[in-house]
């Protein structure tokens, strides 16, 4: 084992964040974050799939013929996703119902394919595994931020527990129901990207 390369985990958290910088895996990030709980479950599932598919592909990287590599990658990823889906259905059935098609869509999640192509095809298994975990965590950071903001302001609760006290509602406080609608997810991601780039000037375009 050639040492523990800590950068592989740290970089994707901010400087090479899969969502805000590499622009991968947007679809699921937006759709599952109306509540915190599905967002966390989704983040864990994606991390598991990315890490293990990176590991497997990296072991096989010298035996896969380049012409059919996409099909091989898709088959391995879909096997892992089927496993994750069955586990979710068995242990957290309610969340699995809420996530509906988005568990299946991990197969075509650009994070998985993107990291396989960009990293696992040309690096050692253990490094690829770390890269998978790092990118999964980078994805998780954005998902959890979105989940917290949207659930707190959209439903006044976190993880299903009420956070904003009843006395606020009696004083005329209202939940912002636009927060749990799709458009607000897009605008929030836009704002996150804005803040992130304002603090890291070298990421700005042009």
């Amino acid at each position, binding site marked *: 084992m050639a040492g523990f390369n800590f950068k592989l985990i740290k970089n994707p958290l901010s400087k090479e964040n899969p969502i805000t910088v590499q622009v991968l895996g*947007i679809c699921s990030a937006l759709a599952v974050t109306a509540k915190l709980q599905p967002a966390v479950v989704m983040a864990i599932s994606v991390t598991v799939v990315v890490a293990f598919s990176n590991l497997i592909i990296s072991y096989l990287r010298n035996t896969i013929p380049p012409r059919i590599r996409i099909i091989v990658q*898709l088959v391995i990823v879909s096997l892992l996703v089927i496993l994750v889906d069955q586990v979710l259905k068995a242990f957290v059935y309610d969340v699995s119902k809420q996530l509906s*098609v988005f568990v299946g869509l991990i197969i075509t999640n*650009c994070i998985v394919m993107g990291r396989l192509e960009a990293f696992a095809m040309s690096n050692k298994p253990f490094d690829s595994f770390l890269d998978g975990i790092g990118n999964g965590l980078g994805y998780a950071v954005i998902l959890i931020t979105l989940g917290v903001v949207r659930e707190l302001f959209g439903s006044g609760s976190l993880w299903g527990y009420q956070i904003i006290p009843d006395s606020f509602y009696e004083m005329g406080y209202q939940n912002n129901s636009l927060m749990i609608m799709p458009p607000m997810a897009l605008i929030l991601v836009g704002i996150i*990207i804005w803040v992130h780039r304002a603090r890291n000037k070298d990421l*700005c375009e042009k």
Partner: protein
Amino acid sequence: MQEIINIFVKSIFIDNMIFAFFLGMCSYLAVSKTVKTSMGLGIAVVFVLLITVPLNYIIDNYLLKEGALAWISPKFATIDLSYLSFIIFIAVIAAMVQLVEMFVEKTSPVLYAQLGIFLPLIAVNCAILGASLFMQERQYNNVGEVTAFALGSGIGWLLAIVGIAAIREKLRYSQIPTPLKGLGITFIITGLMAIAFMSFLGIKL
């Protein structure tokens, strides 16, 4: 007939792939720089959706669903293969994209020159797999309804990507705070477009 038109209109405007479900966002953001290329990708998506979704519907109904195998022999009536659906759907999509590419290359070189570069990208576009999974979840009654759903979703996606591409062409000349340039402003504008599309929610079909 009326049911089919309802599904068609509903999947274009109310259940729009991009604005309501965020499917295919990756290619939507990457390819929407000019109207011409986004039109090419949009047409390719409509084309592939129209072929793969009805095909996957047939496979799902006659091979994978619980009891679907009963047409072979009553003995198989209790078999449920639906856990295989992810892998079968993605295999069908990848294979069909390859076939469509070869077919278009042989029959219409003009169309191939326009669609060619986009077709391989489509195999991993979430909108295509997403449409097949929605088809499975929503339980349509027959192939006609499924085709209407596929065509409607494709056209909805096309509308969205051509719309944002036209706006981005204009945006190049406007003054935007530097950190917001490019990706950030595209997200915010997509959000605003999605709010506009929400006004269709009130329509009862």
